[in-house]
């Protein structure tokens, strides 16, 4: 059993209580910083710990907090992104259901670090159960003086509210999410100004992913070196929640050291490949990462190693495909998703994705022509001209399909049928 930090209080059948969380050291970090720390010290320990954003972008969380200037206007906001809508990703749901106070303490610490007094949890409608858990636990924390006015007698005030989304993938994008909270149609907005300067209602706003925020109490309590030491690799820091699905025996969420090998996750934790399945490829971190071919089966799963392999760790949502899975079919399904979820704001995304989807459909259904491959490559490049990161994310599986599985695409075209039936 590897060290369990975020899943320390996880039970198979129930949510950890506030008492259990406190018994395991919960809210000690908050009590400590309220008693004797400056906001800069909190930012510094998170920066020293190399806590990189777990929502997919891997931006250093401490650095992001430090971009809220000391003399920035008030009110300031912390937004917790609990919108996870990327296919394959379900870790944030599991985290909230396991130990909700860990998240609440993390949001409050982030609030302290930027002198904000309001936290907003933006959550997708599919997670209504999690939204209700959070509202209930917020009320309990307020009753114990851990949230709300004058927290633990320190004079620091911090409220958390749950904001329900109407449900759309683009809302996971930072600026789209801020527009959604402000009751506007959630199209993304290109910086500058950056949200940490002018975010919600033109005020400084820091947005962090659920898992990132959950790491914060542990780092503040145990120190940066401890956190870095949790990783298996020099280049990694902390643990990571890997959500694994697809052709494995036991899909689920596992907390493992950052840098653990892919093969180890599949074989030791997910119960190995499904009956009769051989590993062919995986998407290592959600739908907007590329196919990782079998030559990387032993890759250390951290941000740096995946980057060196020309891929991304993303959210750590590993989707495993076996030798019987048609990767053209997988990519077609992903493009159906991206085309439908595009917000429609900019041309490369709105127009490009349906063209890609239709070309892939032609190939998958045996009507593909050899010249389609070149067109797909060109359309993939156009996606990079889009307004936000949504379309370049969609390009990742497409481009990696064409790069690593060109033979499989070719075979569809030559046979005039999907070789997988």
């Amino acid at each position, binding site marked *: 059993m590897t060290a369990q930090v975020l899943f320390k209080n996880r039970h198979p059948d129930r949510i950890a209580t506030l008492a259990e969380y406190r018994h395991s050291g919960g809210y000690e970090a908050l009590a400590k910083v309220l008693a004797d720390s400056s906001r800069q010290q909190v930012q510094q320990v998170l920066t020293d710990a190399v806590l990189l954003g777990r929502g997919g972008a891997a931006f250093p969380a401490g650095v992001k907090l430090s971009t809220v200037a000391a003399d920035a206007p008030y009110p300031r906001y912390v937004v917790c992104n609990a919108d996870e*809508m990327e*296919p394959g990703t*379900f870790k944030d749901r599991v985290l909230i259901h396991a130990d909700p106070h860990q998240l609440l303490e993390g949001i409050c610490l982030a609030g302290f670090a930027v002198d904000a007094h309001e936290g907003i949890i933006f959550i997708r409608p*599919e997670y209504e159960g999690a939204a209700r858990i959070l509202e209930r636990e917020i009320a309990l924390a307020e009753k114990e003086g851990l949230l709300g006015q004058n927290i633990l007698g320190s004079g620091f005030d911090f409220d958390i509210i749950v904001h329900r989304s*109407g449900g759309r993938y683009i809302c996971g994008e930072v600026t789209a999410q801020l527009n959604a909270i402000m009751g506007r149609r959630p199209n993304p907005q290109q910086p500058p100004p950056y949200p940490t300067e002018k975010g919600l209602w033109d005020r400084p706003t820091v947005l962090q992913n659920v898992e990132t925020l959950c790491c914060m109490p542990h780092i503040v309590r145990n120190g940066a070196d401890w956190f870095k030491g949790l990783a298996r690799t020099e280049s990694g820091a902390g643990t990571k929640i890997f*959500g694994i699905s*697809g052709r494995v025996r036991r899909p689920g969420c596992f907390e493992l050291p950052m840098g653990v090998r892919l093969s180890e996750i599949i074989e030791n934790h997910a119960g190995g490949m499904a009956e009769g399945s051989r590993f062919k490829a995986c998407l290592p971190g959600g739908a907007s990462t590329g196919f990782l071919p079998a030559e990387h089966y032993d890759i250390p799963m951290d941000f740096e190693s995946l980057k060196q392999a020309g891929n991304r760790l993303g959210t750590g949502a590993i989707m495993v495909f076996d030798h019987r899975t048609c990767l053209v079919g997988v990519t077609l399904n*992903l493009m159906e*998703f991206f085309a439908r979820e595009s917000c429609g704001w900019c041309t490369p995304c709105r127009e490009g994705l349906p063209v890609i989807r239709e070309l892939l459909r032609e190939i998958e259904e045996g009507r593909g022509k050899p010249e389609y491959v070149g067109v797909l490559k060109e359309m993939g490049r156009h996606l990079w001209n889009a307004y936000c990161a949504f379309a370049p994310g969609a390009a990742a599986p497409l481009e990696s399909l064409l790069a690593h599985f060109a033979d499989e695409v070719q075979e569809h075209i030559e046979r005039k049928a999907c070789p997988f039936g």
Partner: protein
Amino acid sequence: MLPENLKKELQDRIAAVDHPRELVVDVLFALQAHYGFVTDEAVEEAAGLLGMTPMEVDEVATFYTFVYRRPVGKYVIHVCDSVICWLEGGRSLQEYLSQKLSIAPGETTADGLFTLLPVCCIGYCDRAPAMLINKKVYGPLTPETIDQLLDELREAH
């Protein structure tokens, strides 16, 4: 027309926040619960309550998967059609649902009970193939569990 008590409840919630329009989705959900879907009248009423124009409200209302601008059944089935559910046989289950309910995706049964909407990943890849019925999750699904579920819901009705 909105009943007075619902109107009052929404007005109180709106009065308690700094920026009324941050509640637009909540207000739309409340009106949807009342009318069954977001009617044109509901768009006007939401706009009036929130100090927005009807166009601004409709820009939001037409954007979201869980805000219905057309009538839906008592039970809205959101069946996941994204990659992991697809891999685990989700498409044939969707066809099975269509056939059992005698409706195409996007349609509502004649008795007004069920609406079938294919949606993107619902975040239950560890329970694929999965679906939501009125936001409650079910999975992994088989034709047998679907039969049982539909029977239970019909009986409950």
